[in-house]
């Protein structure tokens, strides 16, 4: 195999969880907890696994990407499939310069077909884990976004409100900031899903004028339902909320 090699600089991977609009490290000292500030910082794909994968795709190379004792991924760029043997979560968030990248020779044996998955799933997963609540370079919090289709969420890493985010973004174009107000969820969670969808080709970014966005908001304020409809919707929302807790609490990977 031929060593390809890539370099990058980034921070070491840490376990994260959402807390009041910010992502904090579960292991960090209190003074160092706030990793994401209110300015919604970005991250560069070049600093993570995702950059290596994108490079392989752009250069049409089949590569093996390994991280000692943590796992490996085989990317077949031509066939647009990949196979993974990942032992730890840290694999996804490791700095790019820690990976060993080697070309897969033409006559090398591959993994079984049954272990291969579509490459866009790798793009989603790698971006999702690298994001840690930040937006990927090229995306903006005022982007007007619409999802072309629902991602296959049963086979992708996602956040507790991923289904709600997808439902809203499939239904209509919307900005992250409005989406946050609609769903009343952390911006970091939306940024993570949006970044993954953007790289995986699920998200359409529509350039619209501010006035058009404002008009849509005005339309919204005009539509007041009858009181009986509100009551019924409250009932449904109560049930939905309880159901979501019941179903979501037992879903691993959140």
């Amino acid at each position, binding site marked *: 195999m031929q060593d390809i090699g890539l370099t990058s600089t980034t921070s070491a991977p840490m376990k994260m969880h959402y807390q009041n609009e910010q992502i904090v490290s579960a292991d960090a000292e209190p003074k160092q907890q706030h990793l994401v500030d209110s300015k919604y910082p970005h991250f560069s794909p070049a600093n993570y696994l995702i950059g290596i994968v994108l490079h392989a795709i752009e250069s049409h190379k089949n590569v093996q990407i390994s991280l000692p004792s943590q796992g490996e991924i085989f990317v077949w760029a031509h066939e647009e499939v990949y196979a993974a043997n990942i032992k730890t979560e840290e694999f996804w968030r490791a700095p790019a310069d820690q990976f060993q990248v080697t070309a897969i020779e033409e006559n090398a044996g591959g993994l079984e077909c049954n272990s291969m998955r579509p490459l866009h799933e790798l793009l989603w997963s790698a971006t999702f884990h690298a994001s840690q609540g930040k937006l990927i370079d090229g995306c903006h919090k005022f982007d007007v976004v619409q999802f072309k289709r629902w991602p296959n969420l049963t086979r992708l890493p996602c956040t507790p409100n991923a289904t709600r985010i997808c439902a809203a973004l499939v239904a209509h174009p919307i900005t992250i900031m409005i989406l946050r107000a*609609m769903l009343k969820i952390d911006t970091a969670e939306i940024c993570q899903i949006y970044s993954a969808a953007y790289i995986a080709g699920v998200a359409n970014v529509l350039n619209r004028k501010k006035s058009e966005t404002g008009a849509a908001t005005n339309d919204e304020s005009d539509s007041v339902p009858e009181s009986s409809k509100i009551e019924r919707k409250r009932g449904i929302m109560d*049930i939905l909320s309880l159901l979501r807790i019941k179903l979501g609490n037992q879903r691993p990977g959140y």
Partner: protein
Amino acid sequence: MEYKIVFAGPVGAGKTTAIGSISDIDVVGTEAKASDGVARLKVATTVAMDYGVLSLPHGEKVHLYGTPGQVRFSFMWEILCDRAIGLVLLFDDTRHDVLTEVDTYLKAFRNHIAASQGAVVVGLTRTEMNPQVDFARYHSRLADYGLNIPVFEIDARNRDDVATLLLALLAIIDPTTKRNKVAQS
């Protein structure tokens, strides 16, 4: 109030199994020994309906109904869908005529789908036989019916898969995911 979600799809798609994996009670089934062409697919098949329950705090319940898959029982499909908050369609991805089956069910449930404003999700089963599922053909066919809805791979035996599918259904129903509801929230 009590609510209802209906699971539908062809024979052998995994409806009974999916309800069983998510229900808080043992599935109340109406399985009978299969005859005619169904016997080639499975030993027993649902002839009336399957029933399961998701019990929620404060005594509320969401009833889960599974329809019989054979088209000759289609007269029951709309009956079971009456006042359902959502519809889960399951299809066996390995079936060569799966898109025809998609057509059959979308047409059979078109009234319910329209009335519920598209509260329907699709689960594809047996995808372990071919992990590279051709989602585009499903999304394309659904688009022919004006639907852009979730199409997920699921293992009907896996509670997490079925739960995720139901969470997607709930998200579609959820009024807060509709932009014109911002002012009310």
